[in-house]
Every structure is written in C-alpha cells, then in structure tokens.
C-alpha cells in the first residue's frame, strides 16, 4: 500500500505517518554524526580495548570513560533475519515487506538493521554484507546493509 491509500483507509494525517527517528543520547551522538558523514563509527575503550555497541556513558567492561570513536570496516555477516509483512505501526506500512536483521560486524558487535537492495528470498544466514547509508532526513542517516556481490 502506498502512503495515500494508507492515509485514506485509516483516516490518518501526514503527521501519523512520520517515522520515528533516533534521538541520540549524549554518549551516542558521535555515532549519528558519523553516519551523517557516511561513516560507521564504534566506541572503543582506550583502557581495555572493549567495543560497546550500543554505546553507553562509560565502558561496560571496565567503566573507563577514556574512549575513542573508531571507523568500522563496513563489513559484516548476516546472523539472522525476518521479513515484516503485516502488523507494523502505520508509519512503516508503506515499506512492507521489509527485512529486519541481526548483523554481525567484522569488529565484533551485533546490530539490528535493515537489509536492502536485495530480494528477501535470496537472503542466507552467514552471507557477507556491506554497509550503505540511507539519508532518511536532512538531519538523520541510518546505516543499513546489502549483500556483497560475488
């Protein structure tokens, strides 16, 4: 269903169909600023080397606040996925069907994201992925993933 059909069918306004965007915390701002510049950043502790994603105020391994944002390779492996087809909030209906996945970054952390630019039927756990940046608004960019072409 396209946006206009959904609006008519459920008697909605444009406001109802506005997607929720991430509201960064003080300690996660650099991640979203990096994404805006099409860089995938991860918070790495300078004392113990632990990478936290999602990031928190201090290192969840050693509580150190001495951290650095490193640029990730943008390479990952598909761990698991699902294809949303029904029962999502109004503002995601125009996107149906879409893939939500657990993505294992080469650097270690696991992320929730979308797999784009592919037929969901071709997805296979363990397949290699590369990051793509979706500029969803002038202020916000969401890192997403697509299969690496062999």
């Amino acid at each position, binding site marked *: 269903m396209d946006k206009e059909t959904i609006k008519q069918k459920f008697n909605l306004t444009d406001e109802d169909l506005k*997607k929720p965007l*991430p*509201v960064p915390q003080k300690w996660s701002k650099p991640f979203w600023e990096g994404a805006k510049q099409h860089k995938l950043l991860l918070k790495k502790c300078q004392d113990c080397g632990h990478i936290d994603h999602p990031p928190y105020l201090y290192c969840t391994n050693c509580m150190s606040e001495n951290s650095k944002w490193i640029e990730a390779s943008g390479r990952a492996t598909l761990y698991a996925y*699902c294809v949303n087809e029904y029962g999502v909030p109004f503002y995601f209906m125009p996107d149906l069907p879409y893939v*939500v996945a657990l993505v294992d970054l080469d650097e270690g952390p696991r992320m*929730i994201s*979308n797999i784009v630019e592919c037929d969901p039927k071709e997805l296979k756990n363990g397949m290699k992925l590369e990051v793509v940046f979706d500029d969803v608004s002038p202020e916000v960019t*969401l890192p997403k993933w697509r299969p690496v072409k062999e």
Partner: protein
Amino acid sequence: MSKAEFAIIGTGEVPCGIYPERSEFEIAYTAAKLAIKDAGIDKNEIGAILGAAHIMGSEYNTELFFGRLPEAIGAKGCKITAATISGGASSFSIRKTAEGILHSGKTDTVLVIHAQRFSQFSTNEQVKYFATAGSDAEWDVPYGMTYNSLAAMMTQAYMTSTGTTIRQVASVCVALRKWANLQPNAMFYKKPLTVEEVLNSRMVAYPLTAYMCNVLADGGCAYIMTTVEKAKKVCDKPVYILGEGSGYSHRSITAAKIRDLGKMYEFYAPIAKEAYEEAGLGPEDMDIFEIYGAYPVGQLMIMDSLGFVEPGKSGALVEAGETSPGGKYPVSTNGEALSFGHTGTGVGFAIFVESVRQLQGKAGKAQVPGAKFLIENCAGGAYMDMHFTVMGNEIPSQL
C-alpha cells in the same frame, strides 16, 4: 535439600479474552475475592496487598500507586501495599517482594493481584506500543523492528542452528491450544487448531505466521501467599516454593550473553539447575513443565534447558505430541500466552496460578493426574532474563 519457607494457599482467576466492559478494577476485585474464598481465610488476615503495575499505562496504575486495592477489597488488617513490575518477569519480582514482607514477620498473609484490560487501547496503539516497548527507541525502532520481528529473528536463528522445522514450530501452537481447550478461562477455550491452520494463516513476520504470534487480551488473577508454618495450619493442600534460580542477560537482543540463539539453553539451563538443586529434585521428578515462552520459539528454547529433552530436539518432541494433554511431558497446561491469552505481564501470573491449581488438584479437565512437583518460569523484556521456580505439594526433605 529444600528449605521451603513460603506457600500458596489459594488462587482466583477471571476468564481471559476480549472484555471491553470489564475494568481492571473489576478484574482485580473479583480475582481477589475468589482467591480469598479459595484460601478459606478471612480478608482481614491479609497484611499486605501487592499489585502488578502495567507496562502500557492506565488509570489502574495510578490507583495502584495510590493504594486503591486494600480499601476496595476491605482488607482492614492491611499494613503494606505496593506495585511491583519487571515486565514479563513481574510474577517473579512481585513474589520476591511478597517473600521479603513475609520474611520480615510483620504479617503472615500476602495477597498478590494482576489485572489487565488491553481492549481499552486501539489496535494501532497496541501495535505501536509493542513496536516501541520491545525494541530500543534509538537503535531498533527506526529500523521498523517490532516485538514480532524480534521473535521472528529468534525463530529463524533457532531453526537454522538446530534444524527445527517450521512444522515443528507450528506444532507448539497446536499443543498449547489442546491445553487451552480444556481450560474454561482460556481465550481460545473450545477453539481447536491444526498445524495446517497455523502454517496457512497470514504471514506476519517471516517465518512467523499470524497464529504463531500473540493476541493481546484482558484478564487477571490473584493468589494468597503465606509462611509454610501458617499454610500447614489453615490449608489442606498448600503449594510450596521449593527452589528458585534467576539470571539476567541483556536489554537488546544484540547484547545477549549467548551469541548462538539456537543455544539459549547455555544461559537458561544453569539457572534451571540452580532451582532444581535448591529443591533437592531433578527433571525426572517433575510432573509438569509450566513454561512461559510467549512465542513458540521461547517454548522450545526453554524446553531445551529443562533436562527432559536433548537441546535442539524439543520441536520433535512437541510434534510427537509428548507435551500435549496425555503426553509424557505436559507443558504449559493453561495454553500459555498463545492460547490462554496474552495479558502482558499477566502471562507469568497465569502460569503461576495454573501451577498452584495443578498441585492442589484443582485444574479440572486439564488436571495432570497425581501432579506432585513442577517447574515454572517467567521472563521479561526482549528475552532479557529468566526465573525458574520449582514448586510442590510436598516438601522433599520431609518425605
């Protein structure tokens, strides 16, 4: 060897389903009255009343915080009232609160109540709420993740890791429905279901079809908890808390302690072992496994952890009918979230109350003959934690 300190002496429950005209207050007051009557005590003996707060807020929450329940129930001897919540794990955290109060010696009788009316919210409000509550607002929600997506990804990971088939996943729904068909208070009482119907229902979040997902419902229950000492005096068949085990894993599934989601038993099994050991019992002593898994995959992951089936083979066991009525390993005898009805935090309460009923021999057509010991669980969040409890109508050390 178990050193049981606490016992349940009575329960009350209202029918689960869609009942828009029945307020949470009516549910709470009715369930409380039934539990008091079932326990055979005077309402003025109750020294503390604990209510489960809601994750989807309403006037009931506020009234709970402002002490409505003791006044409305007329519990003249009530000294303490409080609301306790930890999402789906609330049935455990509220019971620990009750145990703490009993342990203090200030009262020997606690009333615990859960009441929920999801039908006051529109479908979109419910969908929106469970998209945002189960998912992280910053890292998951912008990607269109919902609670169903979470369970779907876990199912997909579990199937890939263990070789479990989608037919076996569907058979979990059918086994639970068979139990619900014996439970007059279940939302899907007298509504049979087949594996084909589950598989052919609308695709919601591949690989999950509609019948593999939950329908939010209205319902509630209550129980009376006391010390073992008092229980033996006032009750013919008290149900004892014999052993417990708890563990916390994560907020977001991406941070789960177990990376291979097909092996969640690596996290759950040691917790179950702790509960068994504290009770001085083992899986072979359990007559029933009262599992709260919310989705079929949750049921399978928990069965994998309880020591009566080889991890990863639970799907085959369910498909063979062994967890259904009449099977060798009765699992979730009220039909659980999928078939008794999903009342939010209430699923764990319903499982707990059903556990008590089974051990008191009051489970009607769903009664497992001669049930003496069982293990039950609850868990909250996005599979954030796990709490197992071994219960019995005997204390093993006194056998």
